[in-house]
């Protein structure tokens, strides 16, 4: 069963709706004592990374999250929280991945926010992308991105710069796109995660 880590950042209606359509069981994690009953975790999040980190710190769950050994998936800002730092609010983050979250440069050719369906290229053989062809389209909407890194980037996407569409380290995963809004491949990814 997946525990969704609740810290007051963003709505989760679409995520829980997707899990229900897929028949994946889930519950809510509000504090450290709630972790034990789950074997997977999702860290959702939309909005401002700095504000999200503040809220997460107020829950007192930061140390627990950093010590998790079970599969944990950060989505969008929930993924950015796993990195060391974000330019959004000039904020230090969880530092599970020693890489940074940066802002896309403004340009009329590459608009910000990066909004819409873009190709996700995954070269590494990983169960998170099982039965998802490389270069499948996923839905993105974000102004900040996680830098590309050979060691931690599980899948990349090209925009004004090549960035991490997905990251992976041990039991920690992150996706910048919204799997709950990314058609059947997004649903496949959520199913894959629940099967890890």
């Amino acid at each position, binding site marked *: 069963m997946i525990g969704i880590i609740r810290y007051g950042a963003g709505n989760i*209606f679409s995520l829980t709706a997707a899990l229900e359509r897929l028949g994946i069981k889930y519950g809510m994690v509000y504090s450290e004592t709630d972790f034990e009953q789950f074997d997977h975790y999702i860290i959702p999040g939309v909005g401002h990374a700095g504000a999200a980190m503040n809220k997460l710190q107020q829950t007192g769950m930061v140390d627990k999250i950093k010590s998790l050994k079970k599969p944990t998936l950060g989505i969008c800002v929930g993924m950015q929280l796993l990195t060391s730092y974000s330019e959004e609010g000039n904020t230090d983050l969880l530092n599970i991945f020693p890489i940074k979250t940066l802002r896309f440069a403004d340009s009329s050719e590459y*608009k910000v926010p990066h909004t819409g369906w873009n190709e996700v290229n995954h070269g590494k053989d990983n169960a998170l992308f099982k039965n998802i062809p490389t270069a499948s389209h996923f839905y993105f909407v974000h102004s900040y991105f996680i830098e590309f890194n050979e060691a931690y980037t599980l899948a990349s996407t090209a925009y004004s710069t090549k960035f991490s569409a997905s990251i992976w380290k041990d039991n920690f995963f992150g996706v910048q796109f919204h799997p709950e809004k990314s058609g059947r491949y*997004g649903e496949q990814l959520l199913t894959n995660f629940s099967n890890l």
Partner: protein
Amino acid sequence: MLSKRIIPCLDVKDGRTVKGVNFVDLRDAGDPVELAWNYSAQGADELVFLDITATHERRKTMVELVKAVARQINIPFTIGGGINEIADADALLNAGADKISINSAAVRNPALIDELAKAFGVQFVVIAVDTRRVGNGHVVHLNGGRIATGKQTFDWILEAESRGAGEILLTSMDHDGTKGGFDISFLKDVNEAVHIPVIASGGAGSVQHFVDVFEKTNVDAALAASVFHYGEILIPDLKEVLRQNNIEVRQL
């Protein structure tokens, strides 16, 4: 590469779609959820629901609609129509809407854009602009193009961007309903001037009109209603032609 988006727009009143729909064997052509599901299955990249309910129950019916759509549909959707304050937006966000579209409320109170962007992030805030040519200029109109405001469209769009709009939905009222093609020259000017995505609307009548709007203006998305609802253009056929013209589109 980022795909160009194809967006069907559904008008909804009292929780039911209005305008005829005859493109598929729907059990209930007035059910917005079933219609949305069909568009999603055809390959629509996103949906816009325009709520034209005029009763005091509207927020409740909109929230119910958004929840029903979010439960069933796995692509993003925007809801617009009668969103006047933060509380409206908050209720719709919590019900599962990906974006809200604001039109006249933003014209009446531009600071609403700042408030919404600050509260929910720019990615949640679509500013819908209905424009009409007046003399050599373009002027913002309200109420489906019937009421002229004093605002120059170009200036208003730049103001909306600077206040925190995450996307512009630009409808040319001169082209809307004509099926004669999008307003290429104005869309091109606007698209080159802003740094946020632009959705073209008004005038779609043929597949070639979509090819033209993407090739000649480089807008991010194109929206249409009746050509999709009446089955005059099927989304898989449209996307195939776009692909043949080397325009990046999402494959299912």
